[in-house]
């Protein structure tokens, strides 16, 4: 067996046998499920709690409009003196008091309504209140001006633009969201993978260095071989873990559906009702067509290439950092070149790409090698011209080759240096040795 294969095998086994790895492999799906349930549960908990809002309506206009909803319970304090009403709201710890004074005109009234509360009220609550009163006052205005309400209602039009591309295929408006979710999930997942497995590569380098076994190994293998073996072996461990999760997820889902009797129709039923709020039956059909129409082949292939490319790019930096320092604490000062582009890429992805997938910012960042894996992954579902992808990939591969070469030079010198906390300047010097 060649040395590279031997190293990859050892690294893989060392990672996989590690207790933390075993525990995390089997525990994290459970943690994810538990977290998701917790979030959902907390969300429902929050919604259950209807806010009590008292109102003091001097005009008597809105009394019939304030009907209790899921989120707001209305209490009529119009009969009390205003000060008593205020005190009562404070004592009973209600959400707030809505004060509607008597004014001569609707126009004056519209800007005279006040809300008293201990804390600044929730925007959505305010919106709900404003909606109720706006609609009442509008109706009132129509009537004052002698307009027939029914005629107005009947004359309202509802424009719903149908989206269709030039070859005549219809798409749903939801498709942007779908693309966003696909791209966002891929980009985020890549970032997590880089951080978790890049750190493993770094720790493994530091371990060999602090053990001094590096001194023994280095007389048998080339530093570059050792570094590449580490990066590859660790990435195989990561892929292996991912496979276990996929299988585990499948099993969990099957078990969950059979145990809780959540059979397929019900689940789709839930989905449908959710989507129904957004659009019509037609929309749903288009939505599913959209998912199928996403360039799944291209998506999977480019996901693979950017995933592997991004991982190699960053883990070679991690390996170089590991070689430069004596222990993990010292590695902190060199983390900036890794964390900064990763965070930048995620921000560009979640702000620029979603806003405008083909804008200048998105395009430029999907070309720069350190950010391109994440940003391009998020752009691809929106359809990127093939030549842009090619340029971005060529740049990425070229910089991987360059960075691995550079990291190899740092690694080569760093693994045999002990006891000194190196500076960036010193590391620059090592590249010339």
């Amino acid at each position, binding site marked *: *067996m060649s*040395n590279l294969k*031997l*190293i990859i095998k*050892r690294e893989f086994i*060392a990672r996989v046998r590690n207790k933390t790895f075993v525990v995390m492999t089997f525990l994290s799906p459970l943690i994810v499920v538990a977290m998701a349930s917790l979030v959902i549960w907390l969300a429902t908990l929050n919604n259950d709690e209807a806010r009590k809002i008292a109102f003091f309506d001097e005009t008597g206009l809105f009394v019939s409009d304030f009907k209790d909803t899921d989120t707001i319970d209305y209490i009529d304090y119009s009969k009390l003196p205003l000060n008593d009403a205020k005190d009562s709201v404070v004592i009973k710890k209600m959400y707030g008091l809505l004060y509607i004074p008597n004014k001569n005109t609707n126009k004056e009234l519209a800007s005279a309504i006040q809300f008293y509360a201990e804390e600044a009220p929730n925007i959505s609550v305010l919106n709900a209140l404003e909606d109720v009163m706006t609609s009442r006052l509008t109706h009132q205005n129509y009537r004052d001006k002698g307009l027939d309400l029914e005629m107005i209602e009947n004359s309202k039009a509802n424009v719903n633009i149908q989206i269709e591309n030039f070859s005549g295929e219809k798409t749903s408006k939801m498709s942007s969201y779908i693309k966003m979710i696909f791209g966002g999930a891929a980009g985020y997942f890549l970032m997590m993978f880089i951080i978790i497995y890049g750190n493993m590569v770094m720790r493994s380098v530091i*371990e*060999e260095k602090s*053990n*001094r*076994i*590096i*001194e*023994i*190994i*280095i*007389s*048998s*293998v*080339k530093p570059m071989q050792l570094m590449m073996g580490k990066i590859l072996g660790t990435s195989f461990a990561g892929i292996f873990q991912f496979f276990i999760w996929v299988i585990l997820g499948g099993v969990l889902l099957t078990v969950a559906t059979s145990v809780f009797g959540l059979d397929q129709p019900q689940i789709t039923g839930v989905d449908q009702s959710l989507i129904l709020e957004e659009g019509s039956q037609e929309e749903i059909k288009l939505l599913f067509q959209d998912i199928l129409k996403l360039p799944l082949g291209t998506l999977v292939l480019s996901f693979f290439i950017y995933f592997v490319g991004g991982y190699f790019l960053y883990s070679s930096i991690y390996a170089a950092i590991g070689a430069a320092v004596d222990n993990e604490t010292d590695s902190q000062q060199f983390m900036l070149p890794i964390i900064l582009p990763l965070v930048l890429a995620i921000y560009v992805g979640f702000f620029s790409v979603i806003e405008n997938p083909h804008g200048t910012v998105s395009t430029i960042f999907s070309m720069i090698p350190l950010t391109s894996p994440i940003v391009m992954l998020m752009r691809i579902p929106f359809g990127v011209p093939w030549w842009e992808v090619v340029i971005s990939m060529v740049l990425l591969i070229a910089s991987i080759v360059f960075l691995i070469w550079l990291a190899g030079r740092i690694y080569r010198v760093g693994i*045999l240096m*002990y006891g000194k906390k190196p500076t960036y300047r010193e590391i620059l*010097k090592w590249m*010339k*040795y």
Partner: protein
Amino acid sequence: MTNLLEVKQVSKQFGNFTALQDVSIEVPKGSIFGLLGPNGAGKTTLIRIVNQITMPDAGSVYLDNEPLNPQHVRDIGYLPEERGLYKTMKVGEQALYLAQLKGLSKTEAKERLKYWFDKFDISHWWNKKIQELSKGMAQKVQFIVTVLHKPKLLIFDEPFSGFDPISANVIKDEILQLRNDGATVIFSTHRMESVEELCDRIALINKSKKILEGRVSDIKRAYKSNTFEVGLLTQDNAGIYTTIQNKFEVAPADFKAIDDQLKMKITLDKDASPNELLQYLSNTGQVVRFNEVIPGINEIFIKSVEEHE
């Protein structure tokens, strides 16, 4: 005798720091060679160049008359000064791994490991982790891994540090046995006295330069000053001392002795024979001690450093 290793005018620079400057050494086949010098002299850099861990800036290295090439890695066994093993890997597994990295097949490596583990009576360590073993125990495993692939050239950097005296002797005997079986051995150490009796040839390195190289006996001959340590029983120590002082170059000496004797160091001219001195002394008193002062490696080192500066 042909040379197994020839280092020719090797220089190495790390930034502004000169690690080696024009260093040449010749290591004859089947010999034990001592690479001696204080800490930081450049020994480890030289060894790393021979192991192709570091590339020289200038100069060349020949192993068995061939310029050093990547295949040679398998002909060399290297026990580094700073040595360790994977803490959480089992002893047997990592010995196998390291042996395979040196090009042995798995079955071959297993066979040879079994032989050595039996020899050192450590077979029961196979499934233990290094963190369960003591430092000395781990060193035995490292020694085995160094010699397992039967290299032509064995390089030991500070080999006896970390061993207790008994284990150090076991290892010393094994190294001598390997030499008798045809291997060539290089010892590198700053504790010069510890290996001088083992070495056939030595080279002294100081501050990146080689200051001395040759057969141990030749070097000692070159540095001896024809000085003799003498213990003489007389009636009148002080008087006799003055008399001798007039005839020879004498200095007082200090050594352990049972009775009150006249202790001194007498240095003769370069070509003078000690026989005449002995004859003279035996006429003067009873000679109880008469031996030539042979300089130790440390003294030679200090002297030659002074000569070079």
